[in-house]
């Protein structure tokens, strides 16, 4: 049975936004279509101030070294994006303190082709994840 969208305003964490030089991580290799799918999924589930919330997930590198965050949370991603928070906000994207720290939602306003292309550019080039496959179950030593 369907329910209400989950209103995020009162769930946002009361913390300062990440500093401009703080890196944020997003795993995978995005395209505008993928970003649109993810943003629309968020808008199906979440609202902000009673309006469907378009957005995608990122994690800030706060309190733990980057490699630790990558190993704990992103080991299944071959590639990652690693822009700074300041670069995203400088391109007009708001970072919302959703979920548990250090998760953030990059808020989109329309998720149209133009905005999605701007977001993809703001994420920068995908780069190899140095912690890919570093969190693993048992493997033969020779593997």
């Amino acid at each position, binding site marked *: 049975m369907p329910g209400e969208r989950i209103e995020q305003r009162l769930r946002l964490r009361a913390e300062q936004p990440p500093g401009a030089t703080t890196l944020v991580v997003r795993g995978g290799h995005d395209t505008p279509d993928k970003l649109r799918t993810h943003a629309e999924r968020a808008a*199906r589930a979440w609202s902000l101030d009673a309006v469907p919330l378009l957005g995608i997930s990122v994690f800030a590198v706060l309190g733990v070294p980057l490699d630790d965050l990558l190993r704990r949370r992103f080991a299944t991603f071959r590639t990652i994006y690693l822009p700074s928070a300041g670069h995203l906000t400088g391109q007009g994207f708001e970072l919302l303190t959703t979920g548990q720290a250090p*998760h953030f939602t990059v808020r989109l306003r329309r998720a149209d082709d133009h905005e999605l292309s701007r977001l993809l550019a703001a994420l920068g080039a995908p780069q190899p994840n140095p912690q890919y496959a570093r969190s693993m179950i048992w493997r033969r030593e020779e593997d």
Partner: protein
Amino acid sequence: MYRVDITADLNDEDETGYVWTFLDEARDPAQIVPGALIVAGDAEAAAVCQVIDLAPTGDGMIVHLRLLPGLVDDYRALVERSLAS
């Protein structure tokens, strides 16, 4: 390339700390029950996950998933080892 049981953005988390997606993005929603081990993600990035719970939200049903350690390929190797004669 992976053939996942349920499409998800493995970056997504909510206040529970679990990955979440919608049940109607599953190939076979009947398989998505609490405790089940499934493969979630997309063709390029997938992970073995355990279904935690389902909750009505928005216009559908949200599925919470616990990311399990290791790659999908690791689990295949594990199963092949266990079944080897």
